[in-house]
């Protein structure tokens, strides 16, 4: 079943079309890659799906609901979570707090209940706490929960960002260059990790990545952007042999 349907979205900044007529379909529990040279419009596409930008033209449907122009926090509540290209953790807060905050959107108690600590709120808080510990165990950060987020090594910060996104209980997870700055060994671990979370949390994943090894190894479907235009889509094998893709990445004589 399709959970995300991107219907011909275009983003225009003044005279520049950062993304034009992007069509994309993502099924449940599918891992999809979005690749392309620098400045191809990949992150812009992410920002349109997550509500940071409102597309100039076209619509985005999530679970058959039109989410075009909805605010980012509402889209997160509907079930799309994301990570950022340049890690955006709550740096001065603890690892645990980072994950706890991502549970806030599911909290039912009001602000007064949270101050007087009603039994209902306490129950919810305990549930959130246990859920967050479980998540941190899943991503292998359980021994670091009281550490400040910016004290973590780079690879663990990336993991924490993914854990934080998972805490919002998404059905679709958008990863913006999760392997950036990782060595080959870490990239391999990351591939394994991405598959694991897909299976464990039964979510679909859309990822932007430059590491071809990661993309080809883990994605079931790939979209290729160049100057905002979708130049190819299909399985990893198809993409690898597509002359247009090779041209976009390597150029031709």
């Amino acid at each position, binding site marked *: 079943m399709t959970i995300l349907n991107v219907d011909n979205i275009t983003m225009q900044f003044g005279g520049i079309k950062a993304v034009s007529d992007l069509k994309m379909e993502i099924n449940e529990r599918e891992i999809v890659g979005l690749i392309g040279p620098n400045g191809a419009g990949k992150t812009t596409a992410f920002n349109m799906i*997550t509500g*940071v930008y409102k597309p100039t033209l076209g619509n985005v449907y999530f679970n058959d609901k039109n989410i075009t122009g909805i*605010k*980012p*926090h509402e889209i*997160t*509540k509907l079930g799309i*979570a*994301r990570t*950022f290209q340049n890690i*955006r*953790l*709550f*740096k*001065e*807060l603890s690892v645990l*707090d980072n994950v*706890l*905050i*991502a*549970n*806030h*959107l599911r*909290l039912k*108690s009001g*602000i007064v209940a*949270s*101050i*007087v*600590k009603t039994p209902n*709120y306490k129950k919810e*808080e305990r549930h*959130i706490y246990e859920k967050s510990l479980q998540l941190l165990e899943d991503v292998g950060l359980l021994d670091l929960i009281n550490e400040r987020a910016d004290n973590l090594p780079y690879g663990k910060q990336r993991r924490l960002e993914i854990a*934080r*996104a998972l*805490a*919002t209980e998404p059905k679709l997870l958008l990863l913006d260059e999760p392997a950036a700055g990782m060595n080959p060994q870490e990239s391999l671990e990351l591939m394994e990790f991405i598959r694991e979370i897909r299976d464990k949390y039964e979510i679909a994943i859309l990822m932007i990545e430059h590491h071809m090894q990661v993309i080809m190894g883990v994605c079931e479907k790939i979209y290729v952007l160049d100057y905002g235009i979708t130049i190819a889509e299909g399985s990893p094998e198809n993409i690898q042999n597509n002359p247009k893709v090779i041209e976009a990445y390597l150029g031709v004589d």
Partner: protein
Amino acid sequence: MKKHRLLTALAVVALIGLLGVFNLTFDSYKLRILNLCGIYIILGLSMNLINGFTGLFSLGHAGFMAVGAYVSALLTMSPELKDTVFYAVPIHPFVKAMSAPFPIALLLGGIAAGIVGGVIAAPILRLKDDYLAIATLGFSEIIRVVATNLQSITNGPLGLKGIDRVVNTGWSWGLAILTVYFIKKLMDGSYGKAILAIREDEIAAEAMGVNLFRHKMYSFIIGAFFAGIGGGLLAHMLGTIDPLMFRFILTFNILLIVVLGGIGSITGTVISACVVTSMMEVLRFLEGKMDFGFFQIQGIPGMRMVVFSALLMIVILWYPRGLMGTKEFNWDYILQRKYLNIFNKKKKKKTVSEEN
């Protein structure tokens, strides 16, 4: 955790006992400074919630305080008193009729300030950083100008006089302790964490599902509410208020407390509220005549502020994040330290005895 709670309870009891002793032994001048400390703790915390925890640089505090002070004072003044105070322009009949006992008047003053805070915040929360600071400063001045010109309600520049001076140590410090408790509980809870997330990274907070507008509104309204309470207490401590009291300098004094104590630290604000308020009085001698033997200084009004500016510069240079930064008082820290000290001493003794 239970141990900590017991220690906190003991500390609060000790504080109340200490305040009781002060209350009996201090003369009226010292008591006034003590009460002022309590009020400035409330004001500092309310500003710290908006500026420190939420990261919204707001300079509207004097305005919110004015609303709280005027509303609560008009509620506690008796109709006869109002008639004698409003001699220039007759008082509005509704304002003359309204009255409430002090606790309710104070609460209503706070609520009125919260409402004004919310109404102001709704349109200007689109702004950020210095633009937000200028807009809130502007609104604070607007409130003051309105208070100056709405003569039938506020008695204009003549101000209100003869307000019951009911605020004693119990009121100021009792409410200060309550405010500390309230803000602490708020920041420990899920909403407080979401507010911190906004300060840390707005874009990430929004992407994690935090409704930015709603949480900023919460922070602004609660902050304005406590500023209103502080204003009401001030009015009922001084006995007179007039619009000139609520100039920018008042906001600046509170900002000084917040910055010195640490932007985003409850402990820091409490400490620096007491230190700054006491210093303001202690340093009063600087403004009087001074005789150094070889030369003399005639009294220079404003010398205190020179010292405070210098102090602020020193703190900013060596402690850019205030005395406490974002750290908080923590029983664990103190207990462990003590424990370690005893442990070390024992160890030393042992080694000495072994050598013998």
